[in-house]
């Protein structure tokens, strides 16, 4: 078992109206000087051993469905691994 996190963000050059709205609301609340961009976080509970094949498949899933790489980038993190002998804390970064 492992928990893998996929984080998706709008590309820097893409307008982020949600982030802008949050930035404006924070400013009105007195939290000035803060600029927000809003993305998404997916927590994937993965059964079985987290092999490289499995990680590759998750990467493919992120690219296929979780992110639209026309407008978004994504990063895959292994957050927690519950198998004693497997590498813990491996991080794979991807930006498409």
């Amino acid at each position, binding site marked *: 078992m492992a928990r893998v996190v996929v984080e998706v963000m709008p590309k820097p050059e893409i307008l982020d109206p949600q982030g802008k709205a949050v930035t404006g609301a924070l400013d009105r609340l007195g939290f000035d000087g803060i600029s927000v961009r809003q993305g998404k976080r997916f927590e994937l509970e993965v059964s079985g051993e987290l092999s490289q094949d499995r990680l590759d498949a998750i990467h493919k899933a992120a690219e296929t*469905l979780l992110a639209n790489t*026309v*407008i978004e980038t994504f990063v895959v993190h292994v957050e927690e691994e519950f198998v004693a002998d497997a590498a813990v804390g491996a991080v794979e970064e991807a930006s498409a």
Partner: protein
Amino acid sequence: MATRIGVVTFPGSLDDHDALRAIRVCGAEPVSLWHASDSLRGVDAVILPGGFSYGDYLRCGAISRFAPVMTEVIAEADRGMPVLGICNGFQILCEAHLLPGALIRNDVRTFVCKDQRLRVESTDTAWTGAFGLGDEITIVLKNGEGGYIADEPTLDRLEAEGQVVVRYLEGNPNGSRRDIAGVRNERGNVVGLMPHPEHNVDLLTGPSLDGRPFFTGVQSFLAARV
């Protein structure tokens, strides 16, 4: 024999019935298609209607793009079948990579609902052949995520190849790059529109009949091809 035009109903589709009605009003035979079926029921053309398929979860059109019916739509589009995506349908076609680019939340951060002036800039498509190049028309526009976006090289290519089908006039309502309201694929059989021509086929409910040529145009296109 009347042209058979299918309209796909996804869970959360909103304008499927208006599209079916527009097809009938414009002289073709409307055929209901179902998202979970892999049959296109032998139709000659397909419309992906507006609405909020799968609740717009994840991203607009992202989940619908993988509905069973879409496998058939993509295969037939690749063989040249006319496919029109309206609003949510446009979003689905972009997610399916049948059209370039993507649609993001309106820059004005509000839902937009208005009678929109447009200019027709490509008549070399399966759906816009009944218009004259440069025709100015009024079509209902209603969307929350209608901002058309693509990288600069893609936008340059779309302009150079004449793939911009309609452009917004009298102000950009949603932040779409280069005022783009609709695009086509290279072949011209697949068209995506943010405005809703199916709402402009009857003067009882709209200010113009400017939606009709989209539905008559595809029939002429198909008749000429046979």
